[in-house]
């Protein structure tokens, strides 16, 4: 019985200890500026979240080495949200309520971010990130922009439209098919605008095939796509599902073009079983090119430091988001004032990011100035950039 009692008391004590820490408010004008970073570090999208977190932390390190924000150092607190809404809210509340950050770097995922849209306005905490779904920046009911949410890459519909435009204009495709997992928000958010765009341009959608998280065999779907006579198939999932989808299509005898989201980047070509040909996919950066921006330096450094074997585009996301935030903070009179910083972020114009492209934030708190690179694989399986696309 005593053991039980001590156990209960111990548990209570632990929970009290949890509540005891933190919340020491400092008003020292030279104290470090605390910012938060919410990323998926141990969940199902951690292969994207881990490099994203690294990129943000590395950016903070570089900024601090170069004198910080007008002499004040930045302090970054990374929280793991596991691509889950409740966990994401815990992260947000901990950063804002407990640690007292004055801005947050968001994840490359829309699901957790969509839960913060109104909180960020109540708390006046600017959130800068790569949640590419429009619902994270604009209220679809009222059309109003959420005042503290900022997206610094093309939104999912812009990306999908860029790819669709390239497929129609440069590749001359007209009969489209999609194969995707509607339970995956990342895929769903790109497939819908892709389909809408190709139909708007007068092309035909001949097949729309789906699969679920627990499905591992897409051969029936692939047979239907072959039978539909499609000449271009869009894939929009995470890498693991893209690999299966590509092989299923080629195994079923599909020889046409396959276009895809930025998850088709290396190591895609090394891991599919069939020959890689006639694939075109989106890239946010020309990351293998050392001459544009510093993205190549970033991905190389990330691979060296963490033992990752292929370049990770998300490193650039983390870096870019911190740069956008830092730029606004440098201009602010009080860099810890969320409202002032948010106002300055919304005025960001022609800021050069890691990819060498400049960013201007528009009224919807997204960007019109950035396009997407179109990449493909050469006969040795090396990624090459073949175009740059921007639909207005």
């Amino acid at each position: 019985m005593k053991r039980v009692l001590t156990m209960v008391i111990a548990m209570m004590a632990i929970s009290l200890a949890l509540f005891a820490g933190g919340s020491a408010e400092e008003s020292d004008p030279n104290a470090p500026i605390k910012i938060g970073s919410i990323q998926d570090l141990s969940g199902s999208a951690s292969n994207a979240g881990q490099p994203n977190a690294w990129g943000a932390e590395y950016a903070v390190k570089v900024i601090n080495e170069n004198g910080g924000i007008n002499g004040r150092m930045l302090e970054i607190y990374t929280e793991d949200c596991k691509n889950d809404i409740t966990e994401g809210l815990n992260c947000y509340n901990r950063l804002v309520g407990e640690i007292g950050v004055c801005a947050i770097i968001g994840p490359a995922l829309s699901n957790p971010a969509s839960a913060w849209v109104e909180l960020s306005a109540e708390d006046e905490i600017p959130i800068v990130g790569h949640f590419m779904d429009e619902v994270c920046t604009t209220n679809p009911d009222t059309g109003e922009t959420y005042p503290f949410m900022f997206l610094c890459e093309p939104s999912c519909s812009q990306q999908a439209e860029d790819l669709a435009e390239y497929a129609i204009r440069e590749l001359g495709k007209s009969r489209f098919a999609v194969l995707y997992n509607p339970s995956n928000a990342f895929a769903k958010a790109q497939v819908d605008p892709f389909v809408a765009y190709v139909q708007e341009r007068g092309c035909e959608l001949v097949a729309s095939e789906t699969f679920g998280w627990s499905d591992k065999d897409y051969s029936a779907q692939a047979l239907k796509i072959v039978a539909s006579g499609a000449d271009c198939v869009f894939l929009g999932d995470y890498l693991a599902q893209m690999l299966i989808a590509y092989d299923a299509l080629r195994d079923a005898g599909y020889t046409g073009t396959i276009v895809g989201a930025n998850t088709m980047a290396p190591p895609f070509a090394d891991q599919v079983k069939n020959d890689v040909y006639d694939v075109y996919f989106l890239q946010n950066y020309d990351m293998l090119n050392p001459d544009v921006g510093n993205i190549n330096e970033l991905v190389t450094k990330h691979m060296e430091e963490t033992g990752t074997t292929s370049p990770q585009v998300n490193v650039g996301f983390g870096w870019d988001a911190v740069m956008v935030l830092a730029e606004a903070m440098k201009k602010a009179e009080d860099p810890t004032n969320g409202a002032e910083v948010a106002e300055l972020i919304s005025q960001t114009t022609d800021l050069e990011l890691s990819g060498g492209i400049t960013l201007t934030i528009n009224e919807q708190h997204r960007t019109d100035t950035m396009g997407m690179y179109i990449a493909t694989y050469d006969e040795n399986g090396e990624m090459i950039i073949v175009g740059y696309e921007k639909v207005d």
Partner: protein
Amino acid sequence: MLLQLLINGISLGAVYALIAVGFAIVFSVLKFSNFAHGGMISACAFIGYFFQASFESPPPIIVTIAVTSAAGVLFALFLDAIAYRSIRRHRSPSIYYFLASLTISILITSLLNIFFSKNALAYPMLFSSTTFDLGSLKVSRMDMMILAVSVVILAALMLLINKTKIGLAVRAVAINPDTSKLMGIDSGAIIVLIFSIAGFLAGVSGVLLGCKYGVYPDLGQTMMVKGFIASLIGGLGSLGGAIAAAFILGVIEMFWTFGFGALSTPVMTFVLMLLFLFIRPQGIAGQFAKEKV
């Protein structure tokens, strides 16, 4: 086209069968749903990958399978030592096995995600071309290999259970562990043997699934649901039933997906489960359906 779908369905069924038998064998003796199996499959896919990647040129696949299944057995024994042994010692009800296996499954997936999600991994290609033509049909070489390996292993397992003395002991423990003990069967050892067989199967499935679908932390977890459904339709705990049901499920799923799309497949499988329970509550093989009270 119908024949092509049938072949694809049978190949898919072979994958499901391999997983379903891993559950069914544990269920037949210990009467609990071994959720850890999915995590074990993922872990074994990684073990197999790192084994073959440690060589300059990858060893033949059969060596990788053998080594990984041995590792799977060791892994199962390890899990038995840390989680299941004391459940046996306390003579706790089988629900504790169930909880322990659930926890282990979450633990394995979480650790794999933390340590190995940064690099997507894939086994080297086994065949220079992925399919061969059979008349107008395209048959996947990988699928045929999985089918062949599954059939050999499942046949060996059925022989072991149905024709050998050890198999007899396993069946006796499945019916009643305490009475078997009185008959001189070491039921503890039999239970360890069962876990080892499940570990062996996880090793084989891990390598084969890893070859076919790529190596990532959620690999086994996401496939597990299908294996459960197959073992349930087959009549929980019946090996033959699970194998038959797995093939049926594979073929039905393939045709359903072709006809109605994959999105509604979970609805179809649920209705199928309910229908089976209505028409044939004892499962395909007709064992274990009613609890003995």
